[in-house]
């Protein structure tokens, strides 16, 4: 047997498709990849295609059976392994419980040199999972990246960009990366690729084969509980105007006038 190739694990959060594409239900599936992870997936696949990089790209997804379609897509796009982390006792996990479950999954996989997570999910928006996972696994490096440029044996080279500067950084491994770029479009996958992807197996990790302590996951293991959800936006009293341009212009001028009285600033 040849030397084991080290894994890069991409944690993909399934998010409701409606949240991403409000008007079109283009792909007809209830769940889609969180856009940050989609971009990271494309980035990593591209690196693999270029050929120099040797790593096994493992996508893990926590959710119910419906999340399988996301892994199927990731495999079709070029990921090597797909792991569905699913168990009825995982339902209702908050970030403390989720990071515990993901830690167990990563430990079960073994041979992991880097974990990539989107900087946040577009539904929960907490951004806590990568940090918690890094803490639990005891990985020494936690980095922020906008693009992964090169994966070496013991380090990763990546681009970090903010409003003021772009940096090319190198971090030693093992590391957890918060991936900061995202992509809103659906990837186009050829039929041939879909066929190829279908041949790859999706493994199921559950509480038993991961040796999960049931007290530490799901609602039991969670430290936060959502008591109530309220709609924030009360319907506004709307005014709809059609046709009469003059009336519209007057309303705008009046409203602009109100703002002006209160503030006298310099002109930008």
């Amino acid at each position: 047997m040849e030397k084991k190739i080290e894994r890069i694990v991409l944690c993909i959060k399934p998010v409701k498709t409606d949240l991403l594409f409000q008007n079109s239900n283009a792909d007809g599936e209830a769940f889609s990849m969180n856009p940050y992870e989609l971009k990271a997936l494309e980035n990593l696949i591209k690196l693999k295609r270029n050929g120099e990089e040797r790593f096994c790209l493992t996508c893990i997804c926590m959710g119910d059976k419906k999340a399988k379609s996301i892994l199927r897509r990731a495999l079709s796009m070029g990921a090597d392994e797909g792991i569905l982390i699913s168990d009825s006792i995982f339902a209702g996990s908050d970030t403390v419980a989720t990071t515990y479950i993901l830690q167990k999954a990563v430990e079960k996989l073994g041979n992991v040199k880097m974990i990539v997570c989107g900087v946040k999910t577009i539904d929960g928006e907490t951004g806590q999972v990568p940090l918690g996972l890094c803490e639990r696994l005891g990985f020494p490096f936690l980095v922020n990246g906008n693009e992964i440029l090169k994966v070496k044996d013991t380090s990763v080279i990546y681009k970090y960009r903010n409003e003021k500067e772009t940096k090319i950084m190198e971090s030693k491994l093992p590391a957890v990366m918060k991936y900061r770029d995202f992509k809103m479009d659906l990837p186009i996958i050829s039929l041939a690729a879909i066929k190829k992807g279908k041949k790859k197996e999706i493994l199921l990790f559950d509480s038993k084969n991961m040796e999960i302590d049931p007290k530490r996951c799901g609602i039991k293991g969670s430290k936060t509980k959502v008591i109530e959800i309220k709609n924030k936006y009360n319907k506004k009293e709307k005014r709809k105007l059609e046709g009469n341009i003059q009336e519209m212009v007057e309303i705008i001028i009046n409203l602009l006038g109100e703002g002006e009285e209160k503030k006298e600033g310099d002109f930008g």
Partner: protein
Amino acid sequence: MDDNRIKEILVVCDRSTEINRHMMEIIYKAKTIAMESGHLVSVLYTGNKNKDIVKGFSQCGADILISGTSPNKIGMWQFSDLVTRWIKKRKPQLVLFQSTEFGKDIAAIISARFEAGLTADCMDIFYDITNGFRFMRAAICDSVIAQIHCINCTMNIGTVKEGVFEICKLDRTWKMEMIPFSVEEDNTYERETCLHMSKEEQIKKEINMKEYSTVFCIGRGASSPECVEGIFALAKKYNACVVGTRPVIEEGIIEKERQVGQSGKSISPKLYIGFGVFGASQHLVGIRNAKKIIAINHDPKAPIFDYADYSMVADVKDILDKL
């Protein structure tokens, strides 16, 4: 632990050299809760501490100031260890962090380390004896508010964004205890190295959208040169900030810095006027906190009309001509 231990709320300040507004807002909020719950407010701060700064902390309600120096040399893990040390020693029931990138990272690490419930970006925090602490936060692109309660743990953690709470200086000076601590430089923590750095080419005058109470947004329906010119002229007249939706930014009509929405900035002006903005959800996310929204679009079915206070079905050009 012993039952008569001191009940404490810990506020952890970022590694800044000075006290800032954001810290004061959180400390004052902590004090407001503490006055009802009987907690003490302790503040962990690593910046400079001259007389004015120390006074600033006591004025917004800190009972204990845990202060150290050399803020810039502390890395993320080291800072987390520092916070850990204090949590182990004082066992606070509530720990609040600033919702900055740094503060959120530390909060998430501490949450996993102590198996403590963490609510990110709280909009409000309540306390009552039977239920303990309760947190409110917005979720799903700011469209709903969730009330969150910590369970199965003795410590609650929250992060708070800037500007969520108000500052009120307390009229009387509190007796504030100062506890100094030393931060040893520790080189066992390795960091990533920078191989190459390039500054963004044009460092233009930064556009601080938050300073403007009026914002004009250019959408695809108003991207013709005449419209853009007209909108900028009008913005100058009324001291408004000009922003754009993603398609307009991508076509290079205005700068990336002016992008508003999910991939750009979120704004909360008193008045927002959308010129030819269709209202993709990704854009609407960024303007949901605007007080008043006027939308002008020729398409009566444009989704932005569902969120607007004034929906004007008209051609942008016709309106601009008369303004």
